[in-house]
């Protein structure tokens, strides 16, 4: 075995893992705080999955509708999250998002404009007012490119195509991590006082997902292994509109912007079915006739929003119900029609990438025909449990922000809240980690035994004579999760899933890949399996414990929300005997926030609370 002195080692104050929106924003903040900052990312810089975000970033700037303010945004977020959100995080998010958007503009982002020359804002599901700052339907690309172009001048060091394997600890606290460069297969040690995870979710545990290969739950797996707590893992968001056809692109996202700009959902009988699925809680704020929905689209402020713009969980369940009742489209989805609602040139201008995506991948012209869409696993509301203000996990020195952290979105995330989440909490994580790093002062010694054991378990995969095929094991896992831990869950299915995961665990232990360690796709996949499996197990066990249906978690055997279940979050932690799952009681929210969240909308518009 190689001695520690011969392993490539870099030293930083703070290491950020992940270079999506949250990671880059965190790294920028660390640099601003004078930290020597390193960024480790699995892909090339600027390729992270943030580019896939289409619709926009929610911020109550009130540029389009002056009645909007942070309180309304906060209320929308809490209601959308079925009151499972951490109150303080939802508050911070709603308060700080407008500043983060303006700051982004100063760094070079070029948003679409209003007639007055301000940042334009669009309607989106669950948002009371037009609130999403956007650039056509490629807002995520704009965000990441802006951060990237700004970040490269801040003095951080970026380690591209470098995958983190595991964290290093000294007693309780973090001292760095071990990773490898994908290009060469060479191992590397990063010494740091603080590590910020911005690693995204674990969508790749499912078969139909809008996530890319990077979404293998690295942050969950590493944090869990290092002893951190994961929370709300049962809340997985299925985006209602993923592409359904052709099979090779199944799951790729169709932006909610299509509905925000007037698109409607139809079943195979041509019925606009969403009117049948309006939950009582939202009935007062949703249009009940087609006519009213149309008036809203034309900008009538007295009209209520059409039901296609209900929160994602509601729409995803409605589509599933229609398909199960035999009213689905040819390939098992619903029909999303914008062609009959807007002129072709408006569609091409407002939704250029959607137009492009369907034209090139689906051979379909969305200005002429409806799209076939169905639910696709999109987002993890849950993740690493963090302190609300500093974003520190339960392990000192480990911070998390973005999708891999928990708490901001509760049981269901509103579209558009993700991009603003990245910026708000990316910055806070940067601040938190910098403060922490300053308070630590001197760096501690790296434990050689830990490093070598991490490296050994990675190289074992290449040195086996015989073993399981990582591609097949992954496919197996995806099938299990898709089938048993899908959009609608039951105790029986979750039990089956647990058994299946135990079986797959054995296959993962025996996984083998051919060839050398240089840019070896099979080896990379094999290394991802552990984290995927931890994520899958956490979701399954948390889902089993939550005996109700709420937001992104639907139990066929426990329909509807239950009062007593609203009192706790579910937390997952590594124990002596494997994964431990427990309920953690939610704290009583501050009176002022409670008042805003339950206020009548008219009162908030007048800022009267």
């Amino acid at each position, binding site marked *: 075995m190689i001695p520690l002195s011969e392993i490539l080692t870099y030293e930083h104050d703070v290491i950020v893992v992940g270079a999506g929106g949250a990671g880059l924003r965190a790294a920028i903040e660390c640099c601003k705080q004078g930290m020597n900052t390193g960024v480790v990312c699995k*892909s*090339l*810089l600027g*390729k*992270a*999955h943030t*580019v*896939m975000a289409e619709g926009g970033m929610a911020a109550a700037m009130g540029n389009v509708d002056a009645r909007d303010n942070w309180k309304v945004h906060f209320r929308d977020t809490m209601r959308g999250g079925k009151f499972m959100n951490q109150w303080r995080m939802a508050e911070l998010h709603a308060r700080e998002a407008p500043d983060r958007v*303006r700051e982004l503009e*100063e*760094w*070079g982002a*070029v948003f*679409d404009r209003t007639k*007055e*020359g*301000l*940042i334009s804002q669009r309607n989106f599901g669950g948002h009371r007012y037009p609130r999403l700052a956007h*650039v*056509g339907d*490629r807002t*995520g*690309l704009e965000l990441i*490119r802006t951060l990237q*172009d*700004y970040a*490269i*001048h801040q003095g951080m060091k970026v380690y*591209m195509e470098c995958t983190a394997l595991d964290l290093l600890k000294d007693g309780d606290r973090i001292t760095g991590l071990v990773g490898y460069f994908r*290009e060469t297969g060479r191992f590397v040690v990063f010494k740091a006082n603080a590590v910020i995870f911005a690693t995204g979710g674990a969508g790749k545990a499912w078969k139909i997902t809008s996530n*890319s*290969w*990077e979404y293998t739950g690295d942050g969950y797996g590493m944090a869990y292994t290092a002893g951190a707590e994961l929370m709300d893992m049962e809340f997985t968001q299925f985006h209602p509109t993923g592409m359904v056809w*052709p*099979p*090779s*692109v199944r799951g*790729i*996202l169709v932006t909610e912007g299509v509905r925000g700009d007037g698109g409607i959902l139809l079943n195979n009988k041509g019925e606009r079915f969403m009117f049948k699925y309006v939950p009582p809680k939202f009935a007062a704020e949703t249009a009940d006739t087609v006519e009213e929905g149309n008036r809203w689209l034309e900008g009538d402020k007295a009209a209520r929003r059409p039901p296609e713009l209900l929160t994602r969980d509601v729409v995803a369940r409605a589509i599933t119900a229609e398909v199960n009742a035999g009213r689905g489209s040819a390939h098992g989805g619903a029909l999303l029609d914008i062609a009959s609602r807007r002129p072709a040139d408006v569609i091409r201008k407002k939704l*250029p*990438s959607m137009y*492009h*995506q369907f034209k*090139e*991948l*689906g051979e379909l012209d969305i200005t002429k025909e409806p799209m076939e869409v169905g639910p696709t696993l999109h987002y993890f509301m849950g993740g690493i449990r963090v302190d609300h203000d500093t974003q520190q996990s339960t392990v000192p020195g480990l911070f998390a922000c973005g999708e891999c952290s928990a708490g901001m979105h509760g049981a269901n995330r509103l579209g558009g809240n993700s991009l603003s989440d990245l910026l708000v909490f990316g910055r806070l994580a940067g601040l938190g980690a910098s403060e922490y790093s300053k308070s630590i002062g001197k760096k501690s010694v790296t434990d050689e035994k830990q490093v070598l054991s991490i490296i050994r378990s990675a190289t074992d995969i290449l040195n086996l004579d015989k073993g399981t*095929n*990582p*591609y*097949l094991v992954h*496919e197996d896992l995806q099938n299990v999760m898709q089938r048993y831990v899908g959009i609608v869950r039951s105790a029986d299915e979750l039990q089956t899933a647990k058994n299946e995961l135990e079986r797959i665990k054995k296959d993962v232990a025996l996984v083998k*890949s*051919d*060839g*050398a360690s*240089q*840019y*070896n*796709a*099979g080896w990379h996949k094999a290394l991802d399996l552990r984290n995927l499996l931890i994520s899958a197990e956490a979701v399954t066990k948390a889902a089993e414990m939550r005996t109700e249906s709420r937001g992104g978690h639907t139990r066929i055997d426990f329909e509807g929300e239950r009062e007593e279940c609203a009192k706790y979050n579910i937390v997952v932690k590594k124990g002596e005997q494997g994964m431990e799952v427990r309920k953690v009681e939610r704290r009583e929210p501050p009176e002022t926030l409670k008042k805003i969240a339950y206020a009548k909308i008219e009162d908030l518009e007048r800022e009267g609370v």
Partner: protein
Amino acid sequence: MAKRQFKIWRGNKNGGEFANYQTEIEPGMVVLDAIHSIQAESAGDLAVRWNCKAGKCGSCSMEINGKPRLSCMTRMNSLPANETVTLQPLKTFPVIKDLVTDVSWNYRQKEKIQPLKPKPRDADGNYRMMQEDVDRIQEFRKCIECFLCQDVCHVLRDQDQANNFVGPRFMIYLASLEMHPLDTADRIPTIRKEFGSGLCNITRCCTEVCPEHINITDNGIIPLKERVVDRFYDPVMWVKRKFFGV
């Protein structure tokens, strides 16, 4: 369902050769899907770089039947059915392994470019820009940095001018900064000298291969060339500036 033949270059910077594969093609499959099937079935260690698989991240650039393209946006049924599909890594950049190239040169170019230097905000804390003022730069900002334009540009590909020319990608990056209504910096001298606008002979291959259909040549490079002319080559403009200060 039909089997299709593939000829994929396998190797690293020291050399390599084409290897033959075949795989079953289902409806709607793109070249990247076929590569994934080949990986899973017969070449587990075949290196390919990819991410979003929806033409938005620009990772999976390669040369397909001799043309620089995104493999995730090239449908199998768009390639002649009886032909073997040839896959190669980008020619302009050093090969790392198989279909993966080292594109770090591009990242170094961007660092050399002076970033946006915005003017102060309006009194109410906002910036005001009209849509017609940002339409032009929004086109350039569609760029997904797939570097296909850099790959196909003969100045970089064949003429060995990587030290003197930043390539089409960064010409439109420069254009997006120069035309930015908020920007106060002046990059025209560097565009001419360090970034080599004169080396582009506007043969438009960059525009032809752009998967985002950005009109790189007409809307980006030529306007920059014209701005350089204003500053350096137009005698009347020179006299005007010299004697009238405009």
